[in-house]
């Protein structure tokens, strides 16, 4: 390795470290400022809680054996809705890709459903499925499914026309074109769709938990609001932010593995 390249790598590492340092600094400054403002009485501890109160609330939840159950319930609902949304989205996108006539018929309906605020369907979902986990999953599914269908379908449509022509010139079967070209070429779009899907699923699950749940992070937040325990509400929000960040990072790791050569 040449000295210039070593210098370049060092410069790159220093820049990365600086970015991380400033990110950390923003978080710590925010938490410290929040704590000071609440402890000095400038902000109301009842309404705004504080980092130390949130930590204590989480410790109390752990001691009461409640903390991990709520996280587990929410994560389970997220995972089921995510897998269902992704699988159904993938299958429907494939059908639309293979049947352009069908795609033309459904195009306005997909756009219409996509722009509909799904929370408006909440009461209807509860009446149809009952006040149980099915309603939560259906709510999340309604939110993530259409986005999955649209983005995966667009990914399939974006397959390089020259590569398609090449496969046809080799007399490739429809199945070969699909499995060896169209699907692998759409990895990037599918991964982008996963990123969007994970956040949308979390929104759907929390929305569902707000409406019907007796467990889960969404329930914790609603319960906290009902009993005016805003420490619990803030704890729920912080836990949600951490879950969302971890899920997103998992998708980024998957993206790096799948797309390392593209």
């Amino acid at each position: 390795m040449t000295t210039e390249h070593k210098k370049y790598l060092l410069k790159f590492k220093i820049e990365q470290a600086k970015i991380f340092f400033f990110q950390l600094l923003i978080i710590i400054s925010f938490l410290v400022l929040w704590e000071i403002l609440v402890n000095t009485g400038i902000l109301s501890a009842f309404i705004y809680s504080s980092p130390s109160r949130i930590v204590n609330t989480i410790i109390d939840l752990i001691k009461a054996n409640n903390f991990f159950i709520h996280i587990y319930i929410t994560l389970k609902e997220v995972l089921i809705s995510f897998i269902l949304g992704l699988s159904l989205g993938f299958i429907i996108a494939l059908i639309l890709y293979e049947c352009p006539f069908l795609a033309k018929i459904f195009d306005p309906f997909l756009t219409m459903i996509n722009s509909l605020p799904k929370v408006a369907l909440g009461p209807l979902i509860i009446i149809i499925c009952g006040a149980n986990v099915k309603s939560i999953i259906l709510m999340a599914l309604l939110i993530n499914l259409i986005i999955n269908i649209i983005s995966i379908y667009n990914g399939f449509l974006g397959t390089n026309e020259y590569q398609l022509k090449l496969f046809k010139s080799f007399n490739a079967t429809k199945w070969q074109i699909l499995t060896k070209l169209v699907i692998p070429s759409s990895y990037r779009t599918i991964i982008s769709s996963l990123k969007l899907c994970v956040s949308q699923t979390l929104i759907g699950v929390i929305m569902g938990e707000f409406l019907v749940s007796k467990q889960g992070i969404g329930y914790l937040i609603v319960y906290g609001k009902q009993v005016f325990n805003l420490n619990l509400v803030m704890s729920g929000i912080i836990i949600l932010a951490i879950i969302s960040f971890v899920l997103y990072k998992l998708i980024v790791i998957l993206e790096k593995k799948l797309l390392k050569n593209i």
Partner: protein
Amino acid sequence: MNNLLEINNISKSYHTKEGEILAIKEINLTINKGEIISLVGPSGCGKSTLLSIISGLDKLDKGIIKKDKDLKIGYMLQSDALLPFLTIYENAILGLKIQNNLTKDRLNYVDYLLKLYNLDDFKNNYPSSLSGGMKQRLALIRTLAINPDILLLDEPFSALDQQSRLMISDDVYKIVKKEKKTVILVTHNIEEATVFSDKVIILSKRPAIIKNIININLENNSSIYERRKDKDFNKYFDLIWKDLDNNDN
């Protein structure tokens, strides 16, 4: 020479909401085994359409193409069309894999071509690590790997810089001559058509009809560099240019 392909009176139209576009009109052409033919003509005149019809990728409206049902066609496109998620070796054998023809003979031939074009050391790399010229060479290997009876080259060098263009067109020329392959080349480049071909077919503006067929008789066949130096090169160049020039008037 034996007839490899006989094109009889073929026509092709495209239909849009705005109307019908006649792309090619009543084209007759015979392609003999081992012959190298260039199709030249104004942009959008239907050269690539004709190639697509010959390959069977596009349907014709009228006429008939007589060819052996087992005729193997190798198609090389303007873009290298390499799959970025496959290694260089996997790209080279893609056609063989699709056609379920991964025999020892064919794989040995792929190895030979990879060595010949200095791609052997990059076998396990991905296309992103190759230059434009190397990518097009790999596309050539992929096309030759399936042992086609006829090579359809649709402006395969047009996206390359001048140096790569000359080098790769020379590679293609030498290998098709050595292996006595039949070739149909679509090009905009008169110089390329002159040095590459035994016969240049000049097409008119759309709808494409055959305006003229010029037989090229350059003495040296060892490389396109040598053919360019031939005393008759300019004569053929001018002939093609005049026919093409008349297209615009």
